[in-house]
Structure formats: C-alpha cells, structure tokens
C-alpha cells in the first residue's frame, strides 16, 4: 500500500496547510487559570475543590484503549498530550509543515456547555481564553485561536466576543453547543457579535455530548458504549445544518459563516438533496428561505475533514467528495487525539488543485486570517 514513511512527502512539499482542529490542554485545568479571574471567584473554586475535580466521563464512555489522547504525543517534559505549546509546535506544525493551526480548547468547551453553572461558566470561559492568549498564542504566530464563549448565557457570550475578538490571532468563535438547535433565536446575539467581528462560528463536540443533559444528544436514545456514541456524534451536525438554513439565520446574518468541526461530512450530500426537495415542495412554510438550501450551505457553511471515513475502496471517497464539490471542506488533524489524520496521509487520491482548496483555500477564506 502506498503509505509514505514520513508525514510529509516530496509530492506534498509545496502543499500549504491550515489545520482547523488542534486541542491545547491546559495542564492544571482550573488551577492554571486562577490568575486570570477575580479573587472572589478563585476563592469560590478553591473552597469547592473545583481545581481537583476530575470531570471524568462515565465508565461506559471511557476510551476502550484507556486514553483519547495519543500516548506517542506526550511532551518529553511529561504531562498530557497537547499540554506543552512548545512541543506541540515542534511535533505537529514543524513535522507536518503546517502554516496555521486553529486551537480549540475542549476543557473550556465542556465547562461552558455542561460541567459548570451559568455564572461559573462566564468566569471560567474568560479565564481560559485569557490564559491561552497569554501562554499559548505568544509561543508561535502560527498558532491561531477559536476563542470560546459561555454559551449558557448568550448575552455574556456576545460580550466576550466583543471583549477579546479583536486579537489578531483569534480567527473564530468556538461555540459550545447546547441541546438547542442552531437556528433557534437563543443563539442570535452570539451570531450578531461574531458577524460584527468578522469571526466565523466554529462548532465541535465538547465532550459531554450524548452523555449528560445540556449538550446535544444522539438521536433515538443514549448509546451504550464508546463506539456507539462515537459513530452517532455527527447527528447533531446534521440537525444543526438543517436548522440554520430553515430558520433563516443566513438571511438574518448574511455575512455569518459556520464551520462544523469533527462532525464528518459524508452525510451532507443526502441531507442537501432532502432539504432541497422539501424546500421546493413546501417553501411557503419558510418564506424567508429565498434560495435553495444548497446555496446557503455552499455560501455559509464549511466542514472539517477529520475523522475521514475510510471506505474499503478509497476511490469511493474521492467520488463522493467530487459529488459534494471541493469548496466545502477544510483539512483538520484533531491533534493530539487518537483518531487524528495527518496531512501527508489524507485525501491523497484527489487532484492537486482540489487538494490545495481543502488544505488551504477554503479555510483561509473561512477563518479571519490576516
């Protein structure tokens, strides 16, 4: 099988890469961000031992191999994979010749979506954001950041975007989803602020999804194992695309862009066919939807590539992407998670120009790169 020995091959030497999904890990969690919050809140968290709580997943959803992180990506100085920005830059960016990597902190995401109360989430979100700006973005200019928002409070989320969103390395707003579909007016203050700052909304599973009440839940019931849950996490993506379009979000916010990260993408084609057919038949129920849903999606929504599905016949995947069109996809690794994809091994069957779109152009025109 034609697998390169090194992540980067001569064929790829000139390929420019934006990685849309990289996970920084804040080593000591809440304790690390104490200096970035008001004293009273620090005392509150110390007293309730928030900094030592494990935030563990229920047993049935723990990874079958014991770790969602790659053990071979642990920093030499010790600690969890993804916890040392200097090592991450070397191991991921230098090794794979990645020009920009969009950081998305899932500790912040899970605290904001589920694990903390509303007021707690507002404080913690700002503290984690400021920590990452201060301790990570200063390490290397190639590190870009999808700042998080405390999504249990849309007004506070909008305020956070306006407070921090001008930072030149902030390129997106990471929105921790709740079990409220994305077209719902609950979210609109956040969209208004993101559009105002020219930042796309980035959505990604935050961790408690399909486990707790609060974040999106897989359709039909609660899964019984890690593998069952993993396979169904994409369902929230499908519902959200549908909801965004039919509720008229892109008519209300005509410059808004949304990127779905790690929800997969092969489901998009049949979804669009169904949305388009239904719109042609019953358009008058949602008269603010003035164009085919396909057009809104192509104009406003992007999808990250990882985890790339792997049909037994690789050409089947290339064919499906050709049917989807090449303007929808943005390459992502998901480093340092176990199911990551590296650029040298990804989408190798696609023509060069199309591959360049997916590895660079589409992300460059989606994120606020400057």
């Amino acid at each position: 099988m034609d697998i390169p020995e090194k992540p980067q091959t001569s064929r790829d030497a000139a390929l420019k890469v934006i990685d849309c999904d990289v996970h920084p890990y804040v080593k000591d969690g809440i304790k690390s961000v104490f200096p970035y919050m008001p004293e009273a809140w620090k005392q509150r968290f110390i007293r309730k031992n928030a900094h030592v709580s494990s935030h563990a997943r229920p047993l049935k959803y723990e990874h079958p191999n014991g770790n969602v992180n790659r053990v071979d990506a642990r920093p030499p100085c010790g600690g969890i994979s993804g916890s040392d920005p200097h090592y991450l830059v070397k191991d991921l960016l230098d090794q794979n010749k990645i020009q920009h990597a969009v950081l998305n902190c899932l500790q912040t995401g899970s605290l904001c979506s589920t694990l903390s109360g509303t007021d707690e989430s507002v404080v913690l979100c700002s503290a984690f954001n400021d920590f990452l700006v201060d301790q990570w973005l200063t390490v290397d200019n190639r590190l870009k950041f999808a700042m998080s928002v405390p999504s249990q409070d849309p007004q506070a989320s909008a305020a956070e975007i306006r407070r921090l969103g001008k930072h030149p390395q902030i390129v997106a707003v990471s929105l921790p989803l709740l079990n409220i579909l994305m077209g719902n007016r609950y979210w609109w203050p956040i969209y208004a602020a993101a559009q105002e700052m020219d930042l796309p909304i980035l959505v990604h599973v935050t961790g408690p999804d399909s486990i707790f009440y609060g974040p999106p839940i897989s359709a039909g019931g609660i899964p019984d194992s890690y593998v069952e849950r993993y396979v169904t996490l994409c369902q929230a993506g499908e519902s959200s695309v549908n909801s965004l379009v039919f509720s008229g979000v892109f008519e209300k916010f005509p410059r808004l862009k949304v990127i779905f990260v790690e929800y997969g993408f092969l489901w998009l084609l049949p979804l669009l066919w169904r949305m388009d057919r239904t719109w042609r038949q019953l358009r008058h129920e949602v008269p603010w939807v003035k164009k085919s849903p396909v057009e809104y999606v192509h104009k406003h929504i992007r999808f990250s590539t990882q985890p790339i599905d792997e049909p037994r016949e690789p050409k089947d995947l290339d064919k499906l992407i050709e049917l989807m069109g090449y303007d929808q996809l943005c390459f992502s690794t998901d480093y340092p998670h176990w199911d990551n994809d590296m650029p040298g091994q990804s989408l190798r069957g696609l023509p060069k120009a199309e591959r360049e779109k997916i590895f660079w152009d589409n992300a460059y025109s989606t994120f606020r790169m400057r």
Partner: protein
Amino acid sequence: MSKEKKQVTVGRIADFPVGKCTVVEIDGREIGIARLKNGEYRAVRNHCPHKGAPVCKGFISGTMVPGAVGELVYGRDGEILVCPWHGYEFDLATGAVIYQESSEKLLMYPVEIRNGEVVVTV
C-alpha cells in the same frame, strides 16, 4: 534487483524488557524490538501500515477474541501490538491485522539471539 541483506546487533537481551516494544535505529530506520512473554523476539518497522503512526509506541497486549453476544473471552495475551493512533491490533506472529480482512500488514524483519545478543537481519 534485491538489495543485500545484513545482520545488525541491536543490543543485549537485558536491554529489551519483556512485553515492551523497544525502538532502535538501523541505518536511519526505526525498528521496534518486541520481546514476547513466550521468549520469542520480533523486529517490527516503527511505521503503521494504516496511516504511518509510530506503531511501536503503542502497547503489547492480549485482546477480546470474537465470541458470543455479551460474553468476553480474553486471549492471545502478549501477542498483539496496538497502534497508539487509531488502535489497529496487529498479530505479532504474522504482522496481520487481527480478526478482519485487511491487506495492511506490519513490516517485520528476521530476528535471532546469538550469545545473549539480539541480532536483526535487514
């Protein structure tokens, strides 16, 4: 044209703990030396045939053999190498992915013990 093979001593038995895959370098090529519980040795290219991960940085284990619904049967202890990325399980006897049809296979080299030293043929 086949390249000439050579034999390289990579260390003494004591350098290779049982149940671990210890990576050595031969001519710039990373090769993991796995010392199995049954006393046998394997030499494995540190490159996963799936997507190129450093497969020897995974772990050696047994696995749950295919069985009846709701029943777990643990077997093949110490005979399986698990990739640290996507978790493919490789049979250290043959290099093949276990319990599924797949053309993906570990690249393995002959290895033998001579006078307490581990010798790999590459």
